[in-house]
């Protein structure tokens, strides 16, 4: 059974639909990447999945359970975690406090998860007492991902994790995404750096005007001249 499935979802703001039937499916061991032009509904899709936006039609299932329009904290308890694109760290809290906040819904001892996050992102361990607001953009992104991993999610949603980062950091973030995925976390992410992202994607979804334009493996999408011409800048 697929980890996450969206069945033709429609969603938008103030009665205006931005998503017009988005169809996706991710397995537990997969990285899914959503690409597409600005305004295609990429981030909106993630927000709709994470209950931040009302879905008017269609449904979403997590391992077959209907989770359509569930509230974010309920979804966190069901094993989903979301990293927003902007303002994704608590700037006045220390790195470690940021991670602890990710584990807020957990009642058990999660200290082993702190160690695991520090092993994914060794840079953060030295800076654990520093306010997250003092870190660089790339390190903040690591804090944000680390915070999301604290609940040991089965599915991680990432909204443009490499936006505004230097190519060096971009590669590092992608490497970490692969490592996280190999540890057994399904990943669904939105990316502007489409070519690089599709290279690590098991599945790619090209959205345009709130609908799937192409859905295939990352490699096939990269190889498709039509996709390359229209969506990947040649």
């Amino acid at each position, binding site marked *: 059974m697929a980890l996450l499935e969206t069945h033709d979802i429609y969603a938008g703001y103030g009665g205006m639909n931005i998503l017009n039937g988005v169809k996706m499916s991710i397995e537990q061991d997969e990285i899914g990447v959503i690409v597409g032009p600005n305004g295609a509904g990429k981030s909106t899709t993630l927000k709709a999945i*994470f209950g931040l936006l009302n879905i008017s039609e269609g449904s979403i299932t997590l391992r077959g359970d209907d989770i359509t329009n569930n509230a*974010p904290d309920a979804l966190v308890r069901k094993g989903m975690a979301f990293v*927003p694109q902007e*303002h994704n760290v*608590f700037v006045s809290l220390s790195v470690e*406090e940021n991670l*602890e*906040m*990710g584990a807020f819904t957990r009642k058990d001892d999660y200290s082993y998860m702190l160690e695991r996050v520090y092993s994914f992102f060794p840079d953060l361990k030295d800076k654990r007492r520093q306010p997250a607001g003092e870190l660089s953009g790339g390190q903040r992104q690591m804090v944000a991902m680390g915070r999301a991993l604290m609940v040991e999610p089965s599915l991680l949603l990432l909204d443009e994790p490499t936006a505004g980062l230097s190519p060096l950091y971009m590669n590092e973030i992608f490497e970490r995404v692969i490592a996280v995925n190999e540890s057994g976390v399904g990943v669904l992410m939105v990316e502007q750096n489409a070519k690089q992202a599709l290279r690590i994607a098991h599945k790619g979804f090209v959205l345009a005007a709130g609908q799937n334009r192409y859905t295939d493996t990352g490699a096939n999408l990269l190889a498709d001249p039509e996709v390359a011409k229209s969506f990947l800048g040649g």
Partner: protein
Amino acid sequence: MNELIFFINFVLISGAVIGSIYAIGAIGVTLIFGILRFAHFAHADMMTMGTFIVLILTALFPAVGPAIGLPTAFVMMPVAMAATAVIAIGLDKAFYKPLRDNNVKPVVMVMASVGVTLMLQGLIRFFAGTGTQSLYIDDRKSIFSFNLSDASESIVVTEPQILLFLFTIFAVVALHIFLNRTRLGKAMRAMSDNPDLARVSGINTNTVVGVTWVIAGALACAAGTLLSLDVTLKPDLSFMILLPIFAAAIVGGVGHPYGALVGGFVVGFAETLAVFNWAILLRPLETAFGWDLPADLSFVPTEYKITIPFFILVAILVWRPTGILKGKVL
């Protein structure tokens, strides 16, 4: 020597007393602002209401205090703090939560809190009248005086003032530990930092809001009670100090509890320094420098004391709008 003792009594001790009261009040205001993003004008009347609960409890069990050697009202204060915390949550559920659920602008919340303050004022006067009451029913206020060797005047501290200082220290330390060491305290700081991310992280924002009202309500009750123990209880007692409390919160940096503490003492000492008759302290130098000092040499007459927080507020907003410590987060 007597001049110095006047200074200690009327500036240092008075300033520390009123500064502590402002600080405890301002911490509540600043926490509510940090979490709920609106200026809670009903805070002063929440103080008065809490104090009246103390008065009722003191009248019901007047013998408790003398039995343990503390003022009865002080012994009853923790019970009343709990009651005020419950009422604060009730007020939130009844008046502020419905507005919050409809995503109203902060100014609507502020106006709602003005409405709540008027309602509380009416209720307090309806049940307790408009007269002055004393929280000392069956016990007497102890006064400690300390004599310095070559002075005829003595340094005077009262028992409620000492209790106030001790409570202020206790409250600040407890709040510090709560905000920095506990899961809920950290969640409070997180929510004040970034409410959207707090929600996305799975933090139960309703719980955080509830805890905020519990702390603010309990501290309001304590501030009102400790002030009334020092002077007397009047229905408008706390309302009269609403402005300095807001000044203290803004001076320190809104949303910043340590800022509120600093701001409380800045406003408190500014008031006592401004109304102090400096002629008393300078008189010994009169002959040495050939001055002719007037009888009253204070910056502001006592009856215009309320202008001090106004002035500080304007000065801060002009020169350092974010407050002494940078405001907006806990």
